């Protein structure tokens, strides 16, 4: 843990037993000002329209898994940005000049912000289910992202997330250095017998990885490499720009978010790549595919950002990738950033069809599916684990059980890791599988098949 953090002590306020962490040594007034500045820093007409549209109907609560699993009204999505909303209206809103004229100032306090840390970081996956539910169409997930920027600027985010962010700032990946990356890739290459080029000077495709994959999921890396080789793509990893997960996006550190995205796009341009492939992580794809233009001030048209599920889905759809038929039932968890916020609902279903599996859909599924509970940095935030577990027990576990499917799979490694932890803690006799791994172990090639946990 970084030395400039203090855990949940409420050191400056004297209040105790609350779920908040503090970073950096700042006076309360500075924290408050930073929080507000950070919240509105990137405001445009979209966020402003949201701030002026809420009718307080509370229906967003009916879409939020944290509210549904606990029944606690504090988890109502729009409530999660309450301190920022009040301050926005009084300092930046359409009638801020009037409030100033009559001497009405924001009553936002540091205690209030600290209380809200749990709501903004521990109990929101930024999954966007509340956006679908809101009669006014307010993208509350987007507002929570702005609120996280404010909280980051105030030095009020979970310590675990702050620690990972500090590692990403220093090394660009919490996984480690370029040398650590090269060693790991070489090991996977050797273990699985799959060619995995690194640091080629020119290539058509730049492939990225996630720290989670590098630490826990070598089979997914081997599968992706084998598929790209099978498709005849001219690709490479880069040890200088390998990390796809954007901890700037998750934590609210916009500066880091921009740096990490630009690092990937610039590297792709440097090697002449026209395609940048993001592995399983959903938020990584969202931060790169949908937000890269923000850092360049224009759409990134020369580098096509693609998610691996999109690449695989297209390959099976076009008949370029064939799989052995599994002939067993499967249920699929829709990762929210790939499906609801990403438009890739078709891709995993095309892959499942190619695998010859009987898909038993969860209820709800597709764009309406519930999040795994770990997205949006919640998995990395250890103190949120008990709440996350409650969500799993009350929502996802019964959903999966109701299908009676033999296999339970997903296409996001954060969802997989989250659900795997929750399944273990629950003592449930079920396993979460990776759709990518299923492709890897069943794809038809001239090479020996890949085997989970037992390299070919």
């Amino acid at each position, binding site marked *: 843990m970084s030395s400039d953090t203090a855990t949940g002590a409420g050191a400056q306020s004297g209040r105790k037993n609350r779920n908040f962490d503090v970073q950096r040594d700042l006076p309360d007034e500075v924290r408050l000002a930073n929080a507000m500045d950070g919240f*509105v820093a*990137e*405001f*445009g*007409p*979209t*966020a*402003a*329209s949201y701030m*002026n*549209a*809420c*009718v*307080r*109907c*509370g*229906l967003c*609560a*009916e*879409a939020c898994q944290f*509210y549904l699993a606990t029944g606690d*009204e*504090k988890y*109502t999505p729009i*409530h999660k940005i*309450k301190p920022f909303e009040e301050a926005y209206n009084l300092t930046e*809103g*359409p*009638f801020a000049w*009037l409030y100033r004229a009559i001497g009405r100032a924001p009553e936002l306090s540091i205690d209030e912000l600290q209380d809200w840390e749990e709501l903004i970081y521990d109990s929101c996956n930024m999954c*966007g*289910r509340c*956006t*679908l*539910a*809101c*009669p*006014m*169409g*307010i*993208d509350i997930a987007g507002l929570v992202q702005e609120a996280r920027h404010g909280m980051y600027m105030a030095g009020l985010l979970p310590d675990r997330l702050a620690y990972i962010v500090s590692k990403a700032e220093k090394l660009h990946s919490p996984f480690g250095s370029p040398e650590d990356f090269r060693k790991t890739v070489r090991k996977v290459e050797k273990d699985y017998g799959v060619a995995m080029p690194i640091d080629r000077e020119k290539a058509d495709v730049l492939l990225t990885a996630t720290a989670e994959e590098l630490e826990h999921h070598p089979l997914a890396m081997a599968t992706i490499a084998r598929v790209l080789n099978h498709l005849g793509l001219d690709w490479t990893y880069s040890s200088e720009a390998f990390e796809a997960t954007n901890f700037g996006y998750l934590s609210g550190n916009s500066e880091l978010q921009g740096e990490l995205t630009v690092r990937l796009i610039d590297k792709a341009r440097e090697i002449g790549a026209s395609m940048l492939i993001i592995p399983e992580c959903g938020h990584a794809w969202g931060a790169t595919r*949908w*937000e*890269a*233009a*923000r850092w360049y*001030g*224009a*759409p*990134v*048209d020369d580098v096509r950002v693609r998610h691996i599920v999109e690449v695989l889905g297209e390959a099976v759809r076009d008949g370029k990738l064939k799989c052995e038929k599994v002939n067993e039932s499967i249920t699929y968890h829709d990762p929210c950033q790939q*499906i*609801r*916020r*990403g*438009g890739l*609902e078709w891709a995993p279903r095309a892959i499942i069809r190619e695998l010859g599996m009987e898909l038993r859909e969860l209820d*709800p599924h597709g*764009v*309406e599916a519930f999040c795994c509970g770990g997205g949006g940095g919640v998995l990395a935030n250890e103190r949120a684990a008990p709440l996350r577990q409650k969500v799993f027990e009350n929502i996802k576990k019964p959903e999966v059980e109701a299908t009676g499917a033999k296999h339970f799979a997903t296409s996001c490694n954060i969802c997989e890791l989250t659900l795997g932890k929750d399944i273990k803690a629950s003592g449930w006799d079920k396993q979460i599988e990776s759709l990518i791994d299923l492709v890897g172990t069943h794809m038809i090639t001239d090479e020996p098949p890949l085997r989970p946990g037992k390299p070919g």
Partner: protein
Amino acid sequence: MSAIEILEGPLWKISAGIFVVFGLWRLAHILMTGRRRAKARPAGSPALGAVRTIFGHFLPSPTITHSSKTWFVTLMGYSFHLGLFALLLFAAPHVAFLKNQVLGFGWTPLPRWGFIVAAEFAFAGLLALWLRRMLDPVVRLISRPDDHIASGLTFLVMLTGCFALGEQSVVLRGIHLGLVELWLVYFPFSSLMHSFTWPLSRGLSGAMAGRRGTRA
């Protein structure tokens, strides 16, 4: 100048002016806030996404149809809004007012029984939602004083409108008109502005989803 003449003359013009000027100011402020972010190359149509969300959200999302609260809010919301629009646009005194003071033409007003039915729907919806605002823990937590003031003012405007329907008492008409003017002055500064901001928020979310090839 009598009180009713003041209410019908200068006060009406002032309150209508405040409503228009500050309402437009609020909308302009929203549209001119900050800077527009560059957008990613679209995977789908932002325009179609906007249209789909603007109209699609008139019905409750399948994500929340499991809840009886959703149906209560939806039905009471429609009851209130449709009843209110019927009263606003088709009550005989309103049609006459719009014809004589604003538009120069009119249309067939609601018969008395129609007015009563519309008023019943509007009152039932408003009171049910207001009561829920006070009783439901979620809505109680997120409600601001403004939400209660807006509901209260709207209720009083509707109530005094019913009293003034027969147009037999200048006093009752004056009270109704005075409350309408207060409501108009309060409107641009309050959550009542959702009457004009809803297409913006729905449309912008829908455009974002449309760009991504999904829906909001």
